[in-house]
């Protein structure tokens, strides 16, 4: 059952990443992120299929009720991912109501997106060295490098030129971070 454990983990991680990305896509009107979400959805479909096949293969000698709980969980994560697609699809339909931006900037924590430029003082430094969280209150929760997303990068993660970082924190932190990037 190790395989199914890993599939469920990945499905939960993916579905949550997709929701975060969907709101980020909406906030920044970013069609690139919205397209990435669709790629993740294709991955989700494959995982969903694999997960259910694995459950069926073990069905003979396991408790049916226990397996039902696994199926329920798989379905829910898949459905949550579908909702993310629905949210992100707004980005392709053109004009987005200003209320989204306002609503998302008005929560206690704001989300900021920055690309690390050639001249940035953040370039080639680890998150630990930068101490962004302590200095600006901004927590880097996602980094996009080429086509890949790194969720909750560890302290020894080194930022590179061209990385797109997503951080959340107080509005003042966002302004401070802007000057560093």
């Amino acid at each position, binding site marked *: *059952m190790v395989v199914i454990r890993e599939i*469920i*983990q990945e499905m939960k991680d993916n579905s*949550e990443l997709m*929701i975060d990305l969907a709101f980020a896509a909406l906030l920044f009107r970013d069609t690139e992120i919205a397209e990435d979400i669709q790629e993740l959805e294709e991955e989700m479909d494959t995982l969903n299929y694999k997960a259910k096949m694995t459950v069926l293969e073990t069905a003979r000698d396991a408790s049916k009720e226990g397996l039902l709980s696994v199926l329920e969980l798989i379905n829910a994560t898949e459905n*949550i991912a579908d*909702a993310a697609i629905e949210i992100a699809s707004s980005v392709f339909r053109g004009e987005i109501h200003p209320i989204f931006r306002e609503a998302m900037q008005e929560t*206690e924590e704001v989300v900021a997106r920055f690309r690390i430029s050639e001249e940035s003082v953040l370039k080639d430094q680890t998150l630990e060295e930068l101490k962004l969280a302590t200095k600006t209150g901004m927590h880097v929760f996602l980094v996009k490098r080429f086509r890949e997303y790194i969720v909750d990068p560890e302290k020894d993660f080194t930022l590179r030129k061209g990385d797109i970082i997503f951080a959340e924190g107080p509005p003042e932190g966002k302004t401070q971070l802007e000057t560093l990037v």
Partner: protein
Amino acid sequence: MHLMEKRPEDMNLKEIFIEMKNISELMVDLAYSSVLFDSEAIADEVNALEETMGELNHQLTIRALLASRTREEAEQISEILNVASAIKDISNHAQNISEIVSRDLDIHSVILESLKHTDEKIFRVQLEEQSPLIGASLRESQLASHIGVTVIAVRRGKRWIYNPKKRFVFCDEDILIARGTEEGHLILKEIAKGRRSKW
């Protein structure tokens, strides 16, 4: 325990939208927590939040319908309704997760194993007498900004406090259900035991 300081009927479109987004995120976290800790109390809260969500969605639809006068406005408003309906779907699926507990299904060990190994983990820590968190507010604790840990719920005695606000003050013996990375979890454990005073 209510999240909202205002009743849905007194809120404007934007406030309702923010509330729906926050509640759906909370519901997903609570739903996984209910399964992970096999807690019917948490599953019940998910059900209660689902009802609140229904009311918010209803109020949002009314506001949205009243707000559009031109075709352009109607197009934009329809996007809000789409996103709101997706948010409502998420809360519905969260409820499906917590129903595993409500219906008293056997929770397969593989679920517990997998929930313990995701990028963002949900964990439970209890504050001890010597913890520097005691007497501090959630804002002062800076758990979110410094160690990336979000407190989803707190159990105080027999009572649950869901989605504590920034002014929430920690007490001795509080049981925190929180979300964050494994690193954040380890730091919080140390803080809770009073073995760490800086973070």
